[in-house]
C-alpha cells in the first residue's frame, strides 16, 4: 500500500502527523502486523476518536506514538511527525523528554496504573520533577493545584493519600491530573472510562472536555464504545484488524457511515425510543491477525462482500465531505 494515497490533504495546523505506522509482533507463527499502515493527524484543541473491537490495534497504535510498544512488538514502519520531527528516529533519551511533557497518556485502569506504594501527590508531581527540574516542594504544590483543577475535594489532603484510599472515579481524575501536569500538547486517552460506572463515566468525559478547553490539548481518544466516542470526538477513525477502515468527521460518520463495519457498529448501539427486542450484532469475531482472510479483512463478516472483495484489499480512499473509507462497496 502506498502511504501517499492514504495521506489526507494535511492541514498545516496538525500538531502530530502519523503516516503509514506499522507495528509488528514476532509470534511463534511468524510476524503479525497489529497496526498496518495507520495514518492520521491530531490538531490542537480537537479530539480524534479511535474506535474498534478488542484486538483491532487501538492500544498498540497509541503506545507506538510514545514508542512504548511492549516486546515482542516492534515499530517496523511509518513516521510519527511531531513539530516536524520524526519521533521514530529520536534517541531513547530524547524520547524520554517528550513522554509526559509534550505527549502524555491516560490509562484504562486507574487502579493498576498508579503505584500502590507511592502517594497520589508524589506520582502526579513526578513528571514535573523529571522534566521541569522542579524542586519537591514546588512540584508538590503544583500537583495539589492540579488535583484541585480536576475537581478533587481537599486536594492538599488527598495528595498525601495512597491510590487504594481513593474511589475509581477519583483515581481517574487524579490520573488526568498526572497526565496534564506538564501541560502537554497531546493527550492519549486509552479507554479512560471503560473501568468506571456509567455516572462516573459521564463526569470524566465532562472533565476531559473542560480540560481540553482550558489547555488546548489535542486528544486521541480510544474506545470500543461508539456512544462514548460520539460524545467526545470531533473526528472519528474506525480500525479493523490493524487497518483504518474509515475516517470522517464525527457527525457525518454517525449519521451516515460508509463502511459496512462502521454501519454494523452503529446498528449495535441501543437507541432511545427506537425499536424493541434484540439488538443486532455483527456476526463472527475479529479475525486472527495471523490468519487474515484474503482481500478485504472484513470480507468474511461482511454482508456485501463479493469475489472482488475477497481478491484484493481495498485501499483507504477519499470520499466526499472530507471523509476516507476503505471499501469497494462503500455506500456513496
Amino acid at each position, binding site marked *: 500500500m502506498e502511504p501517499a494515497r492514504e495521506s489526507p490533504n494535511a492541514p498545516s495546523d496538525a500538531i502530530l502527523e502519523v503516516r503509514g505506522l506499522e507495528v509488528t509482533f514476532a509470534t511463534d507463527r511468524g510476524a503479525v502486523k497489529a497496526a498496518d499502515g495507520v495514518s492520521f493527524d491530531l490538531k490542537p484543541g480537537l479530539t480524534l476518536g479511535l474506535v474498534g473491537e478488542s484486538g483491532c490495534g487501538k492500544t498498540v497504535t497509541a503506545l507506538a506514538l*510514545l514508542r*512504548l510498544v*511492549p516486546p515482542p512488538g516492534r515499530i517496523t514502519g511509518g513516521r510519527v511527525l511531531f513539530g516536524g520531527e520524526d519521533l521514530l528516529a529520536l534517541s531513547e*533519551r530524547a524520547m*524520554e*523528554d*517528550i*513522554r*509526559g*511533557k509534550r505527549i*502524555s*497518556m491516560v*490509562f484504562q*485502569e486507574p487502579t*493498576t*496504573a*498508579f*503505584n*500502590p*506504594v*507511592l502517594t497520589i501527590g508524589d506520582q502526579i508531581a*513526578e*513528571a514535573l520533577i*523529571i*522534566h521541569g527540574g522542579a524542586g519537591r516542594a514546588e512540584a508538590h504544590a503544583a500537583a495539589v493545584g492540579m488535583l484541585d483543577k480536576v475537581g478533587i475535594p481537599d486536594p492538599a489532603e488527598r495528595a498525601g*493519600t*495512597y491510590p*487504594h*484510599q481513593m474511589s475509581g472515579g477519583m483515581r481517574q481524575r487524579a490520573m488526568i491530573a*498526572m497526565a496534564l501536569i506538564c501541560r502537554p500538547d497531546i493527550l492519549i486517552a486509552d479507554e479512560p472510562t471503560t473501568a468506571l460506572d456509567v455516572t462516573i463515566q459521564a463526569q470524566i468525559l465532562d472533565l476531559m472536555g473542560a480540560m481540553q478547553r482550558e489547555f488546548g490539548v489535542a486528544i486521541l481518544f480510544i474506545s470500543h464504545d461508539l456512544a462514548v466516542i460520539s460524545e467526545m470526538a470531533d473526528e472519528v477513525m474506525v480500525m479493523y484488524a490493524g487497518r483504518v477502515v474509515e475516517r470522517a468527521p464525527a457527525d457525518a460518520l454517525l449519521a451516515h457511515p460508509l463502511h459496512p463495519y462502521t454501519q454494523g457498529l452503529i446498528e449495535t448501539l441501543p437507541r432511545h425510543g427506537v425499536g424493541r427486542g434484540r439488538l443486532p450484532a455483527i456476526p463472527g469475531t475479529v479475525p486472527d491477525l495471523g490468519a487474515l482472510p484474503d482481500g478485504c479483512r472484513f470480507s468474511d463478516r461482511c454482508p456485501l462482500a463479493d469475489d472482488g472483495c475477497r481478491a484484493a484489499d481495498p485501499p483507504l480512499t477519499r470520499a466526499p465531505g472530507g471523509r476516507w473509507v476503505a471499501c469497494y462497496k462503500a455506500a456513496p
Partner: protein
Amino acid sequence: MSTATDSRGMFGLALRRFRRHRLALGSAAALVVLAVLAVAAPLVEAALGVDSGVVDLFNRFAPATAAHPLGTDELGRDVLVRLLYGGRVSLLVGLVTALAAAVIGTIVGLIAGFYGGRVDGLLMRFTDGVIALPLLPLLIVLAALDLEKVGLPAAFVQSENVSLYRIIAIVALVGWTTVARLVRGAALTLREADFVLAAHAQGAGALRIMAVHILPNLISPIIVATTLSVGSVILLESVLSFLGLGIQPPIPSWGNLLTNAQELIWTAPALAFYPGILIFVTVIAFNFLGDGLQDALDPKAMEGR
C-alpha cells in the same frame, strides 16, 4: 469514614499484625536486650569494676561471684564482659554483612529483572555460579589471603580490626544470591505492571523506574530475607572463627570464644556453654523475627497456611 484508620497506611496495619505474633515479639525483645547489653558492655565492665583485657592468672576459672557474675576464664578474665564484647562483634558482623549482602543482591536482582533478556541471563548464570561455589574451602582460601599483596595499605592490613572487615566482606560477597534471586523474580513481574508503563509514559528513565517505582514495592520481602539471613551470617561467622579463620583474638566473638573453650570442655564446660547458647538464641530469634515480619508484611502468605 475509612480514611481515619486507613491513613496509618500499610505499615500501621503491619505493626498491628506483628504485635499478634507472640514468638516474633518475644524474639524482637530478646534481641533488643542482647543488643543493648552488648552496646553497654563498657558500662557493665565499669559497673562490675573489672577489666576484661587484663590477664589475672591468680584468678583462673573463678566461680561466679559478685564481681564476676559468670566467673572467669582460663586467663582470669571476666566471662560475662567477654561475652558481651563478643556479642558486639557477632551482632555487628551479622547485621552489617546481611545489609551489605542485601544491597548487592538488590542491585543485581533489580538490574536482571528489570532489563530481562540477555542481561538477566548473564547475571543469573553468574549468580548460579556463586551459589555453586563450594563455600567452606573458598572462605578458607579467602580468609588466608594476604591482604597486603592484594594492594591494600599496610596500616589497614595490620590494624586490629582487619579480621572483622575481612569476614564482613567475604560473607557478603557470597551471601547476596538469595536476595538477588528474590528481587529478580519480583522485578520480572513488576516490570510488566501498568504503573511501570505509566511511569515510562511520564518520561521516567530506567534508573528512576527501578529506584522509585519498583524498589519500594520490594521493601517488605527484602526486609524479611535480610532478617532471616542475619541468623545464618552469625552462624557462618562462628564457624569461621571456630576454625580460626574469622575474628582473631584478642577481639572476642562468640565464635572464637567457642574455639577457646574447646580445649577446656572437660575442665570448664560453662565456657563453651555460654557462647553456644548465645549463638543459638540469637540465630533462632532472628529466624522467628523474620517469620513474624513475613506474616505481618505479607498477609497473603499467612492465609495460605
